[in-house]
């Protein structure tokens, strides 16, 4: 999908001796969302945005070394060897050696002579690279003006990290005017550099506006357009993040110094061999420990990180180097909440900076990115059917209030909590809403410029739910339809049900899935004896046997209800 970013102005910061003006140019092709105010704590904003930028440009995927130069050298050696084959006499060899030596001297002289040229060329290439990279590859952050906060959301370059900066309006000493909505902002390396010049001793005007700073470039207009091939998977990434945030997550509150210790260790140690996981050891009533593999070095968290779960847990997460993107906010953070989903599953870091909340969601490991990796966290959720009318009603309610809990919104819509929750899930899936883990509320956040229409609502509900549309979901339906599900044990627990069953797979063999679901049918934990589940666990979503067992359970629930 080619998405056009059209900026009538230019984002930028003008720092005078006594005043700074921050202007973010918004995508003119989208909602006319705007915001104008004066900042109270610009340095807080500066640090949060610096972290967001470090997430946006980060790429921790493995990139093999470029061996072109080595191959060229090898070819040169071959050429020399073959060229010298015919020269058998000592005299010839001596002469060739002398000539080679002379050539090396001349080459070195030429290199020295051309050093300024090479340096300038390298600088030019760097400029071209940065310019083109920003223009063609960096996906500008999505900015949303909410009634109570401003938020910036973005994915990293490797699409394995998602970051969100939520700025409460307390950050501003004066708010002139604003209009809620979602749009993109022009965000460049130069802007990042300028952001670092923000100071509290300068009055800081903060404008989000289609014209940005309206700085006319010399000899022409500052109009800038980007056309980026926005992958469907990127949109899917937003959905996956939402899905993972609504999972049953294990929460730990740590102190900034704990994060400092983790980052410091990672900065000073680079693992050359596997395993490279960061192992969370959680024992009820005790402080959480993080063990770094392969050195088995343990870092004990602070007093606030006492685990209050019912039984000991060990959770391994990978792609730990991505934590270094949080380094800038450590000194200004007041507390940090860590949400763990399970081994190889996403981790969410929520840093409370006072008037700003910084959210960093990391996929299970770097290669299992949010947007195109194998993660299928949407399969873990379960929702009821919703009609197009219910969907538009919920969307209208959300549009009216701009934010709200599922309970609060259900009162507005009059649809009931479960129905509203399902409708919100649909809206999240089509990019019309988001779940704010920090605030525990749903917010309106339009990923696309086009308004939400009845037609789209019909398309959203007619399209099968992810759990049904996926191959695993379809196989689960087949299994359930052929009476292949036998629930062997089912007991209610405090947060839902624990189930075990025997499922006859499509291959004819019987498997024994075990499942923990909440009252809404969301999978909290699951295991299965099938090979796929043994290999991947839940890192790539549940297997068809688990989904089939859940179908059996939901069917039983409905029967009991009637």
């Amino acid at each position, binding site marked *: 999908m080619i998405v056009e970013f059209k900026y009538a102005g230019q984002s930028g910061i003008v*720092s005078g*001796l*006594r005043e700074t003006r921050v202007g973010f140019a918004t995508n003119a092709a989208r909602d006319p969302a705007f915001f104008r105010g004066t900042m109270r704590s610009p*340095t807080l904003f*500066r*640090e949060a945005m*610096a972290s967001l930028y470090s997430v946006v440009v980060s790429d921790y995927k493995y990139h093999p070394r470029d061996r072109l130069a080595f191959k060229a050298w090898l070819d040169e050696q*071959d*050429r020399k060897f*073959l*060229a010298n*084959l*015919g*020269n058998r006499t000592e005299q010839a060899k001596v002469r060739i050696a002398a000539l080679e030596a002379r050539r090396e001297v001349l080459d070195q002289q030429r290199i020295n002579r051309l050093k300024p040229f090479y340096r300038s060329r390298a600088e030019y290439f760097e400029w071209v690279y940065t310019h083109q990279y920003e223009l063609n590859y960096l996906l500008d952050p999505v900015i949303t003006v909410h009634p109570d906060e401003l938020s910036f959301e973005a994915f990293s370059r490797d699409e394995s990290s998602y970051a969100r900066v939520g700025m409460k309006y307390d950050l501003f000493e004066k708010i002139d005017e604003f209009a809620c909505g979602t749009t993109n902002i022009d965000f460049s390396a130069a802007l990042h*550099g*300028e952001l*670092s*010049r923000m*100071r*509290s*001793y300068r009055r800081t005007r903060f404008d989000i506006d289609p014209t940005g700073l309206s700085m006319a470039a*010399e*000899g022409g207009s500052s109009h800038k357009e980007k056309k980026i091939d926005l992958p469907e998977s990127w949109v899917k990434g937003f959905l996956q993040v939402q899905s993972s945030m609504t999972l049953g997550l294990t929460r730990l509150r740590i*102190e*900034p*110094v704990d994060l*400092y*210790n983790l*980052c*410091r*260790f990672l*900065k000073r140690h680079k693992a050359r061999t596997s395993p490279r996981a960061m192992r969370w050891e959680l024992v009820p009533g005790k402080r959480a420990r993080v063990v770094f593999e392969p050195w088995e070095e343990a*870092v004990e968290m*602070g007093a606030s990180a006492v685990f209050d779960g019912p039984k000991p847990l060990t959770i391994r997460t990978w792609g730990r180097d991505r934590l*270094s993107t949080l*380094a800038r906010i*450590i*000194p*200004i953070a007041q507390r940090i909440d860590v949400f763990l989903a399970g081994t190889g599953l996403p981790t969410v870091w929520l840093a409370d900076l006072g008037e700003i909340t910084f959210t960093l969601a990391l996929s299970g490991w770097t290669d299992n990115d949010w947007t195109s990796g194998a993660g299928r966290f949407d399969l873990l959720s379960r929702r009821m059917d919703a009609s197009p009318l219910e969907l538009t009603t919920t969307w209208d309610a959300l549009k009216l209030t701009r934010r709200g809990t599922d309970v609060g919104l259900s009162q507005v819509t009059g649809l009931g909590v479960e129905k509203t929750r399902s409708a919100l899930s649909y809206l999240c899936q089509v990019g019309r809403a988001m779940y704010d883990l920090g605030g525990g509320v749903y917010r309106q956040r339009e990923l696309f410029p086009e308004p939400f229409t009845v037609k789209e609502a019909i398309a959203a509900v007619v399209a099968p739910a992810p759990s049904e549309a996926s191959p695993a979901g379809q196989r689960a339906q087949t299994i359930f339809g052929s009476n292949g599900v036998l629930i062997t044990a089912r007991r209610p627990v405090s947060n839902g049900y624990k189930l075990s069953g025997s499922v006859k797979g499509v291959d004819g063999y019987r498997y024994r899935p075990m499942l923990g679901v909440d009252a809404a049918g969301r999978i909290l934990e699951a295991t299965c004896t099938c090979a796929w589940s043994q290999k991947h666990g839940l890192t790539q979503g549940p297997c068809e046997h688990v989904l089939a067992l859940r179908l059996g359970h939901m069917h039983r629930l409905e029967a009991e209800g009637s």
Partner: protein
Amino acid sequence: MRMFRPTGPERLVAIAVEPVAGSADRISLRVQRFFKRGALTGTEAYGPFALDELEDRLADLSDDLASAGFTRAGVRAMLDRINSPSARRRALSALRLGWIGDRTAVDPLIDRATLEGTELSCVVEALGRLGDSTAVPLARVEAARKLLSRRRAGAEALRALGDAEGMAEVSQRAVDRLPQAMRDGWKAVDASAVDEDALTDLEAVFAHLDVKEQFLALDTLYEIGAPLAVAFVRRVLATHADLHRPHRWRYTKSILRRATLRDDGETFAVVTRRVELLSRKPSATMAVVKSGLDGQSRQTRVFSTPTQRHVRKAAWRYLERLARYRPARYTEVAAAVLAAYRPEDRELPKGNGDEWSRVYLYNRILRRFDGRLFFNPKTLRTSVVNPKAKAALLPTARTESFPLVWDAYPRPLLTLLAEAKVVEVQQFALRAVTARHPELPRLATARQLVGMLTAVFPDTVTLALSELDRRFNPLAPDWALLEVMMADERAVIREHAVALLTRCADAWTTDIERLVGFVGSPDALLRSTAASLVLAALPTADPWFRRELAERVLAILQAPETSEGINDGFARVARDGLAEELNAILGLDEILAMIDRGSTAAKVAGGALLGSRPEAVDLLGTDRILAMAMSDIAAVRQSAHALLGSALARLRSDPSVLFALTDCEWKDTRAFAFELLRGPVDVAALGLDGIVGLCDSNRTDVQEFGREMALKHFDALDSAALLQRLAEHPSPVIRRFAVDLAVAHLKEGFVALSGLEAFFRRALLDVMPDRREKVLVVDFLRERGLRDERQAEVASRVLGEFVRTRGKGDFERALDALVRLKLQYPQVDSVVGVSA
């Protein structure tokens, strides 16, 4: 040449070509008449005459003898054999008749062709070689056949006979036969000229053809025979990895056959070299292919060892026939073959072999009579007779085949010197030139001379340089040679051209047309050197010449650039050599127009001119000069610097202009601003805001300058405010500076210390901190905390958090500080406690 008649007192005539003593390019013909071999009956001599007339004189002589009943030796025997019951003998005799070239064979061959035996293709080929137009109707019929061998023979005969109409039909049919994609591609290019882009386009089309169609298309293109088609065929054959595979080899063979019929040495060389290299390892393939003879599909071994041997031997037979019947063509084709080999074609020596043992044609052409080598006709390998003996060849020894032919037609030796990449081949050619044809380099074309300059053999380069020296007269340079050298794609040749251009600078720096051509050359080195030479010559040039040149250069600069950077030489000349003349011609408005709207070169020239016009300051205004000081063009920036430098009084009254320049993205402009702010303009006028503004920059040099100014004016500034502001800087360098200032100058009391609490926290919680900085902060907090209780609270809070980090060295220092604070002020909250 020998001629024979069966009857009469003189039955044998031998014609010999003899050089005229003392005259290299004149020859004479000696005719000896015999009754029979050994029985001489008379001798005649004709000439002397020029070498160029040889063929005409020989033709006259043979016509005279033919009228007396003589025919070329062997013709009668071949004419007898042409009616042999054996098809093989008929075919061979027809081919031999074609080589001999006696036109008395034309009618018998046409008669034979009417019988349409299996030797028909050979008969048509022979008629083509004979070049008699009476064979055209037959060739046209054959060229329209479907069977490849007959069509090929007919088409190539028509080409040899020069039948333009027949060839047009052949080409049209060939184009129609091309696969659709290739046909479209072929129609889209200009076939008459060899153009790199067209070749690339054809390559792209070729790559997407079906494998079975690729080489069929290639053979068809070669049949068309346009220069572009031939160049394309050569390129593909030289690079394609699998020309010996099924569906390809058949057409490769066909192209080789066509190349021999056309005496196309380069294509012949490309194919034979690839065959030689492919023959080194087993490369035969079994495949079901359709026979060209009977149309049946059979399981066949493609490119088998016998086939390889046959092709290699046939290639040498062809060269031998050339040497015997077309000696002038022999040296050309042999030179093309030798020039095609590359150093990487060598092999690691095995047993008695050497690097070239398995390259059959190379050995036949170049080392046939080397007494140290032994040729095995069964394996076609040449091995060293005695590997341990290290006998060198005598300088006069001749190892090549047909040395007399090489002596008679030495011109292709220049091809070898210019194009051969193998050292031994270069040595052979150089030895022949220096020993027997020292005058030959004088005949080298400019292109050959240029090729010799980049030869792999140093002595060849020396020879080329000496010839270049001989030819090049700085007072009357060979402009044509210079043009060829300057247009060469190899940088080293263009460097030679530049060197020559420098030698003859006097001959062109006074000629405006040539000067403009060189200074506006597409080659950057040439442009730059030419501009330097012009600049060196201008001080002594006549005033009228300078004026005229200035006008010409101005016209060029004011016109749009044809390609980026092409006018930079003119900009240099204008800036450094013609400023005076241009200032006289141009008004201020025109200069500004050049800067505003001109090309980069025009901006450079305009900028240089503007710098010498101080009156422009008032006209332009400060904002405009500021914008110019930040321009992308260095010369424009420099002119802005010059203008600002001439307006110091204005800058002293308002230094904020310079403050804006300190954060310019160009280093030279920043350096200019620093220089003024250090000297004539006082930065202190900007106050604390100005100095902190400098430190707040993201550029390290500006930060450094800001630090320098802060220290210089520290006494005049509010130190507390300065510290408070510097403490917010995110750069570790400025943070360290602020730490040093705080340690040395922070005011006494709780208020000053608590104001920097967040700063100290940031310094200590940096993931990659400066060790010395941490030590300074911990010691400072300890020291200040010990002074009073409230400061102890601040210090305990910061150190209490820091002590929980995992830094081993700093842990003890921080703990020590905390303990001391706790002992002094037990009531202060701390992470450490005092037990009784």
